């Protein structure tokens, strides 16, 4: 597993998800170091369908460790344009590289202004420390 960390270039949702903005219209989503550490080793990732509409603050996928299943919450609203197929064979990437190879989906954003409600890395760290 990786060291704890929360990159400064990401936006965070208080349900332990991150978003990396790509231009004005797209973003990549994943779960944070804290989320994967709490869950333990991920053994199964159930991705959404391509083209599915997802809503901010609602579940769009599931990740499972040996012991537990956890909903993944969308930090922003939009439409799924890509899912990380490599996770089907190696879901442990979510633990090993949560901000890189462990990314979950790429989304075309439908309400870019929603980013205002997300947390910076510093704010998210503060939430975890609280």
């Amino acid at each position, binding site marked *: 597993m990786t060291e704890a960390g929360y990159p400064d270039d990401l936006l965070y949702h208080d349900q332990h998800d991150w978003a990396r903005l790509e231009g004005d219209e797209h973003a990549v989503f994943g779960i944070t170091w804290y989320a994967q550490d709490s869950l*333990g*080793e991920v*053994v*199964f990732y*159930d991705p959404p369908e391509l083209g599915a509409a997802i809503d901010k603050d609602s579940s769009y996928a599931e990740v*499972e460790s*040996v*012991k537990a299943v956890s909903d993944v919450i969308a930090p922003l609203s939009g439409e799924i344009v890509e899912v990380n197929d490599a996770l089907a064979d190696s879901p442990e990437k979510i633990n090993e590289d949560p901000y890189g190879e462990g990314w979950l989906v790429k989304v075309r954003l439908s309400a870019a202004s929603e980013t205002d409600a997300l947390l910076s890395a510093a704010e998210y760290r503060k939430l975890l420390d609280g």
Partner: protein
Amino acid sequence: MKTPLHDQHLASGAKLIDFAGWEMPVTYEGVREEHVAVRTHAGVFDVSHMGEVEVEGPGALAFLQRVLSNDVAAIAVGGAQYSCLCAEDGGVLDDLFAYRLGGDRYLIVTNSANHAADLAWLGRWSRDFDVAVRDVADRYAMLAVQGPHARMIVGRSLVVAPPPRMRVSAERVGGRPALVCGTGYTGEDGVELLVDPEVAPAIWAELLDAGVVPCGLGARDTLRLEACFHLHGNDLTPQRNPIEAGLGWCCKEATGFVGAEAVARARAGGTAERLAPFRVEGAGIPRQGNPVMLGEERVGEVTSGSFSPSLEIGIGMAYVRSELAEPDTEVEIDVRGKRRAARIASKPLYASPSSPKEK
């Protein structure tokens, strides 16, 4: 409540959960690593939350024969035996091991969640017998050392001669009297140690120094499920009898135990449902409570489900209609609204090369 090894768990970085009122380690480094350690090497579990009851007196055998489902007369001194504790209607109140420590002295090891109720039940039935039933849970810490190398490491590092499978021997461990039992709940060879709580931390440290991997309840659950050992509260309940649970082999109705008539009826007449192990064919991890489906019909319910670290697929046990409880029957598991193809399997779901046959 905390076990005598609580500080050791914190020092080893355990994630603790509440289990039947006990603060217990669920994992240290990861469920999968701990599971693999037990399958390939040796792991140690703190199972001090388990309860112990001593039964002693001239009427001990007759009493236990009355309350336990198995033929207690078949246990020689130094022997061990698995049994159900049944209610009058045959419902399973608990499943447990009985160890014969002496001619008129037995120790039974209860599930922690059932310990108090078991004690009350045993106390009530003991009135008709010349026997003393004592709660001795405080007298023991319990460590399960399991895996193909467990016996060798315990023998060498604790300087004891572990008894054969399904036997118990009185030894000194850590300078205090202890019981070393050739039993376990993982489907691997190994021993269970009943030791003085005061010396449990030193024994734990000794085993870790010898390379034994600390393992939590998470791995204990995946290991026992691969071996198809029942978990009381999931796969066994007072609403199920031993026959439908697949435990007819440990019920000897001729002994006249409490519940024997109901068990005999279930055995002769069959039961509407039976507990069956299954494997998921593709993606999906079944969990307790998931419906078992045949077409649009609900034909059963998962009582234990998990990812299998050895098989790398979803596995479980479910009560299904008896006619479906045969190996190779194809069913579907409704995992949170998604249908997952599954196939009924035979026991065990995973057989280790060193796997002992008994629970």
